[in-house]
């Protein structure tokens, strides 16, 4: 097979995108008049961006804030819980089922309870985001903390390293790749969690509605273009989160970890 030049490889996704917009456009114009409302054309969506720019930006900021807060709480708590879980198989056996339950509980059902407990708006959104991100992050980090190379653990013990040194100088650094895998999954879930949270437990008082709130408004008014625009903004938010995590993991791993070695790239 012929080698594809590097610049073309980078250009390809953009070209596919342009192609898809064309396909979208042609589907639009081939729809009959009474079905036209089902699929807004690219230009209608573009128009919605211009018209609702302020609302979408405000919604993105609100949702982004909730997602960031929920994600942050999730990072901190999943790390602490993972440290506790890594202590012994006994601790894991006794706590894992309850973490599973936390994950299995449908957020929609507990949303009303959360609203009563922490109040609607930012705090509910943060809590819901946290609930959605937490599980994959804690599972990954725990797996990392208990997968430390046996030889290295033995070496630390022979050096009479304290338990504390073993955790901070050995187990935590060697769990970093796993930690970032969890973070990456969490980063894709956080904006979704914040939008869902906003949808079911948001607070629009003072124009502080997030993307979930905008979704409610636009769908009740059949503003298909605006709904599409909202979806695109939510998607972009997800990309920002993932990009930030990817950058962070590159910074802390690329020098030493095999996954960044150039030879098998």
């Amino acid at each position, binding site marked *: 097979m012929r080698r594809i030049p590097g610049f073309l490889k980078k250009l390809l996704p953009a070209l596919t995108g342009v192609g898809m917009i064309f396909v979208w456009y042609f589907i639009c114009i081939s729809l009959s008049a009474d079905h036209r409302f089902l699929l807004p054309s690219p230009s209608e969506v573009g128009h919605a961006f211009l018209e609702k720019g302020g609302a979408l930006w405000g919604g993105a900021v609100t949702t982004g804030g909730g997602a960031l807060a929920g994600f942050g709480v999730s990072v901190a708590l999943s790390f602490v819980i993972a440290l506790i879980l890594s202590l012994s198989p006994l601790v894991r056996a006794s706590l894992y089922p309850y973490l599973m339950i936390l994950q299995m509980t449908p957020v929609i059902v507990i949303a009303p309870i959360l609203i009563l407990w922490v109040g609607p708006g930012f705090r509910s959104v943060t809590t819901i985001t946290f609930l959605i991100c937490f599980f994959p992050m804690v599972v990954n980090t725990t797996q990392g903390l208990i997968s430390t190379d046996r030889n290295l653990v033995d070496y630390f013990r022979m050096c009479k390293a304290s338990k504390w040194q073993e955790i901070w100088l050995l187990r935590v650094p060697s769990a970093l790749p796993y930690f970032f895998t969890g973070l990456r999954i969490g980063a894709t879930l956080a904006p979704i969690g914040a939008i869902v949270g906003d949808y079911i437990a948001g607070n629009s008082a003072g124009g502080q509605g997030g993307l979930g709130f905008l979704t409610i408004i636009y769908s009740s008014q059949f503003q298909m273009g605006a709904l599409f625009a909202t979806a695109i903004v939510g998607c972009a938010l997800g990309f920002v989160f993932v990009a930030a995590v990817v950058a962070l993991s590159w910074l802390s791993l690329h020098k*030493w970890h095999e996954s960044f070695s150039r030879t098998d790239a």
Partner: protein
Amino acid sequence: MPTESLPIVEFAGVMKRYGDGPTILDNVSFKAERGDFISLIGPSGCGKSTVLKLISGLNPISGGKIVVDGMSPKGAVEKLSFVFQEPTLLPWHTVEKNVELPMRLHGVAAASRAEVAERCLSLVGLSDRKEYYPRQLSGGQKMRVSIARALSVSPKILLLDEPFGALDEMTRDHLNEELLAIRQQLAWTAFFVTHSVAEAVFLSNRIIVMSANPGRIHSEVRVDLPYPRTEETRQSAEYQKLVAEVSKILRSVERLKA
């Protein structure tokens, strides 16, 4: 004062078994003088690695007595260093930071750590690689770093458990010569577990041949070839005679096992 003339490691009728399991070591006795380079050789399961573990005080003995530098193995733990078959380097630390690790674990100040690391890396000829990460090094270089790390705590006793077993023969020969060259500069006593008779003869002044099931000392061979030893040593008739002799003993021990 009197400890200087005493053997640095003494085993007297040492027994070792794990729980109710089979006897790993049975009535093992020897004395190691300061500066000895002792190789332990024998069929697998003869307990040669166990001897190293017992010297390090990691595992308790089931009978007999071990004295390390005038005290119990547990008390002498800071006087010894380990080198394993695996380099066991931390992949997220540079070569320099890896060499500093044992000092860091023992709470040595950062400034003096760097100085010692520098010196130890120059001993193994890797001064120019101190900013590298382990994955950028070859197998032989990783093992050199591992040796530099072991030397960083200025050990009196170096315990080497098949350190060059995973390396190719050329690299192994080079590292053997380097190890002896370092030993000329720093006086430590070495216990070296190996499967290679040639390596044992080249490095040691004493070779302890062990037999298995249970692990016992079968015999001891003295290697009176003069240090420093070089590539010429390997060509000499005495060296080759000794290799043949030890191989013969080892074969008879293996037969004993079968």
